[in-house]
């Protein structure tokens, strides 16, 4: 019978701190009712920072007999998630305050979601992964419905919930099939392959279902259909957190699962599993980018862009199948996630600052129209500059983080002989430059509409944007420290 050892507790410390933070903020809402809620965002940042630091200093090792693993990989995921959480909390503070909707529960839910994400980064057992995914997802469903009086947020949350439940069912059913084939849900056991000779079909089916369930979370085509609606409908800071955090955590477990699946289904390139993944990556890159082009709503464009980025990340995960380039590919994926976290949260933060403050929770249809950005460079030069930096990073233009990230991933894909996919990746990111730079064009080259409000900004938002810009630029110019962390993290995953 496995017992709890101090190692288990210590390794789970980041998760515990985040959960504890959630409880603390929950209670703060009811016990400290001064009406001033400015402290809540800072408390969230504090918990996030503590969790990140704890993860940084955690001793690596197996937790609960291998059901979870504390290693450099999980530490990287936790730090990225914590960073995203802290940024999103600052962005939320400004956004919610402007709408009189700031409550402790919001931060509590964010912290709970982050604890799920952090646990997901550690999970090396399909059941633990499922639990972590549910912690993460249930919190984000609730967050998506935060502005509950509005139609759009309610609709978004409803869709997200229904389809999320569907994907969870797939995941769970897949897990049960995997268990049937291998007698275990531990990824290390799954990697050994089926128990009996005839079990490989069962195992493949199970793994496919698991992968499909995870593909939903990362918004890979064709499991992406919810993304535009949900990202557009959810409150903007929540969208930012979902885009960055959920993607990071889901890619972490997807990478671990896919590696186990490669091992279980016998080698890389010749089996069906990588081919399916390759097709998914291809579709995701194409659909995400092509559909982003005609969007006039910046928020919806960013939603499709998020799909497109999932495609590039999938390419990295796919390349990790080849042992020779595994370390490069995974470190590229991790770096990509870190860079996407900073860029996407920053971009959504700017969108959130500019969207019109509509009736309770419901924004008008043109709340995120490109026109709202017109002439921003005159009205708010610094905000426009920040948005430019994020757009350049998402487009992958040097010297921003996005460029280095894309380079690392594409390079790994080329190393793994996925030349055609890498070419598609480069081509579609060239296409991406079009719709990202259109935003820049509107900001710098279109006169502002009459009476356009300047948008809502606050000191906290400025701090968040400054940090995000700094992160994007530093990751772009001095990428080496973070990249070496990512390499160290990738080296431990086998």
């Amino acid at each position: 019978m496995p017992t709890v050892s101090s190692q288990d507790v210590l390794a789970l410390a980041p998760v515990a701190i985040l959960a504890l933070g959630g409880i603390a903020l929950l209670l703060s809402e009811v016990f400290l009712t001064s009406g001033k809620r400015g402290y809540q965002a800072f408390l969230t940042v504090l918990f996030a920072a503590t969790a990140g630091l704890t993860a940084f200093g955690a001793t690596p090792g197996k937790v609960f007999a291998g059901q979870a693993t504390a290693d450099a990989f999980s530490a990287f995921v936790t730090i990225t998630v914590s960073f995203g959480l802290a940024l999103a909390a600052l962005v939320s503070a400004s956004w919610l305050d402007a709408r009189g909707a700031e409550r402790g529960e919001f931060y509590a839910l964010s912290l709970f979601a982050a604890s799920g994400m952090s646990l997901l980064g550690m999970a090396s057992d399909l059941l633990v992964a499922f639990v972590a995914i549910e912690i993460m997802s249930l919190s984000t469903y609730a967050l998506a419905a935060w502005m509950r009086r509005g139609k759009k947020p309610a609709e978004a949350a409803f869709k997200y919930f229904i389809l999320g439940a569907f994907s969870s069912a797939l995941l769970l059913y897949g897990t049960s099939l995997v268990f049937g084939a291998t007698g275990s849900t531990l990824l290390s056991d799954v990697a050994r392959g089926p128990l009996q000779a005839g079990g490989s079909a069962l195992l493949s089916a199970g793994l496919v279902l698991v992968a499909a369930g995870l593909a939903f979370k990362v918004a890979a085509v064709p499991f992406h259909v919810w993304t535009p609606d949900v990202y557009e409908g959810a409150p903007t800071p929540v969208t930012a957190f979902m885009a960055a955090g959920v993607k990071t955590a889901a890619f972490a477990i997807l990478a671990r699962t896919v590696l186990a699946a490669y091992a279980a289904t016998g080698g890389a390139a010749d089996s069906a599993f990588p081919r399916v993944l390759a097709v998914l990556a291809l579709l995701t890159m194409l659909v995400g980018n092509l559909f982003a082009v005609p969007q006039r709503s910046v928020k919806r464009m960013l939603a499709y862009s998020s799909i497109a980025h999932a495609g590039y990340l999938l390419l990295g995960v796919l390349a990790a199948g080849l042992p020779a380039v595994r370390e490069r590919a995974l470190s590229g994926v991790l770096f990509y996630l870190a860079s996407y976290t900073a860029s996407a949260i920053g971009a959504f933060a700017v969108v959130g600052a500019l969207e019109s403050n509509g009736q309770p929770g419901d924004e008008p249809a043109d709340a995120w129209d490109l026109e709202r950005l017109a002439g921003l460079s005159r009205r708010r030069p610094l905000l426009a500059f920040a948005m430019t930096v994020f757009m350049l990073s998402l487009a992958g233009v040097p010297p921003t983080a996005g460029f280095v990230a894309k380079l690392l991933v594409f390079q790994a894909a080329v190393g793994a002989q996925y030349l055609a996919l890498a070419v598609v990746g480069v081509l579609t990111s060239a296409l991406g430059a079009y719709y990202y730079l259109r935003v820049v064009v509107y900001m710098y080259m279109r006169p502002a509409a009459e009476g356009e409000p300047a948008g809502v900004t606050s000191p906290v938002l400025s701090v968040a944007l400054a940090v995000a810009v700094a992160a994007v630029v530093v990751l772009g110019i001095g990428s080496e420290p973070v990249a070496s962390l990512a390499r160290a993290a990738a080296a431990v995953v086998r």
Partner: protein
Amino acid sequence: MAHSDAIQVAQPLLWALILLPAAGALVNGFFGRRLGKGNVALIAVGVMVAAFAVAVFAFFQLFHGEHGTVLRAPGDVWFRVGNTSVSFGLLFDRLSGTLSLVVTGVGALIHVYSTSYMSHEDDFGYARFLTYLNLFVAAMMTLVLGDNLALTFMGWEGVGLASYLLIGFWYTDKQKAFCGRKAFITNRVGDFGFLIGFFAVLSLFGTGDYAQLTQMAGKLQGGQLIATGPFAGWTVTAALTLATLGFFVGCTGKSAQLPLYVWLPDAMAGPTPVSALIHAATMVTAGVYLVARTSFLFALAPASMAVVTTVGAATALFSALIAFAQYDIKKVLAYSTVSQLGFMFIGVGSGAYFAGVLHLVTHAFFKACLFLGAGSVMHGMHEDTDIRNMGGLRKKMPWTHLTFLVSTIAITGFVVPLSGFFSKDAILANALFAHNAMSDAYPWVGPLAYVLGSLAAAGTAFYMMRLYALTFAGEPRTEAARHAHESSPVMWVPLAVLAFLAVVAAVLGLPGNWALGELFGRFTHPVFAQAIATAHVEEHAATAWPFIVAWLVALVAGGLGYAMFAGNLKSIPARFVEVFPALTRFAQDKFRVDELYQWLIIRPLQVISRFLWKVGDALLIDGLLVNGTARAAMAFARLFRTLQNGDVQRYAALMAVAVGVILWTVLGRGGN
């Protein structure tokens, strides 16, 4: 050692070449509106002059020490890919040093000119313009000074961005904004080629650093088989042909060669100083610089050299022909730029590297002068650009006229001691007589380039004299031309400096058997030594007859041009139009290449994206999600409820089908 001390000082100072203009852009960008025009101008020009001073100081260091001294400003690791690390480092050798001088020098002059030219803008527009201009210089210096392909690419993208911003500077004019977009998209197509080349080089050598690449490429033989990596089984020549052709695709975009030249004439929508600095003197020559910079790779790929030479020659002639029929003063100069860039590519393609780069330098002088002169004329003519409305400006604008005439002679080359003559004819003579890897494999390329190039040179002389004659000679043809006035000294002094440079730069390119002969060729030799050795470029004895032929060609064509538009043969052009109306119209329409692209590429793409938008987004998603605020509230609510339901089910159904298909695929393959 005083000299080594100076080098120690100069090396870190190289960063100032990039950071000074960047700082100018930052300050003017954020605070320009509040500073007022005077301070903005002071900052923008000040940083350029300071950068030029730094460039001169650094360039001076190159002459000391042994042959082939280079300055380096090593930087930190930027990123690592596998075992490859890319760092920011700057390299200031005789090639990048020359370009640095041109960029900062001509750039500073054009900044000065702009402070007067753009003075009609409001404070914001004025600051914005000088911000973009400074930004451009910072990016261009990054491109030039980067010691590896990654940094060069960064500059490459940066100049593209600045160019885009400046072409669309008057963005309130839809047409001009569209021109900016056209330039940007065309360039993105080219950039894709650059990236292919870059990745190919990274896969082959594991580095993008020029010094390391030079060293590694020096050890390669063309026929060698590559053992590992994505190119396993290819010969070195084949792999490098792919890489260098990739680079050249990038060059056709940036340097406006066939088939991607279409953006450059439209780029004239930008303010004239921009046309002078970016679309004549510096940015568009980035492609030539890249080929020169990676000449040691091109030398291993004779097929690429042949492609570069042929495309360059074809572009030179093609665009010279278009220039015959244009009536917009800036359009004529734009097609002339495309044509001259073609000459440069003949040079760097056929192994006459120094000649190509020399033409780049001289072209920067005289073409910048011509464009600025055109800007001065436009000022005098109240922004009219149609040369049919001009004439007789000789007397109204003496300084503009004088500098324009000098530059016209320099570009046509029919008065021997002016710079264009030697640089252009060095290229053509080299193309004809070159004995190297390319001419061994493709003996027809050199003579073909010579013939096409000579025809283009004749064309150049013709259309330039036509331009000059219609603008300055004869009598004023309109009221505006009668009342034209000379521009302020702030504008014509830079013109005079550039015209002076256009004359004296001839010294650099004198033929080998003259005094000071081949000054520039010997100066740049260390940079191209390896390429020349690899491609077995053989020196050819300097013979006089190509020079004489070229001179006669220029003289006859130029004289004809002047005679037909200002002299005794004035009836001929009208007769020509009468006899060949269709041909004339075809040339006026720029051979309808834009329409061809519209029909071949843009329309199908639009159809596809409209289809995707209609079917994928509008129909499946937007069509089912109501955004009609126009609808009545009840209908809205009812429809909303129904469609929302349908939506989720549809979404779920799609996912279920997808899972089914994937399962079928995986299991259908035997479950492996």
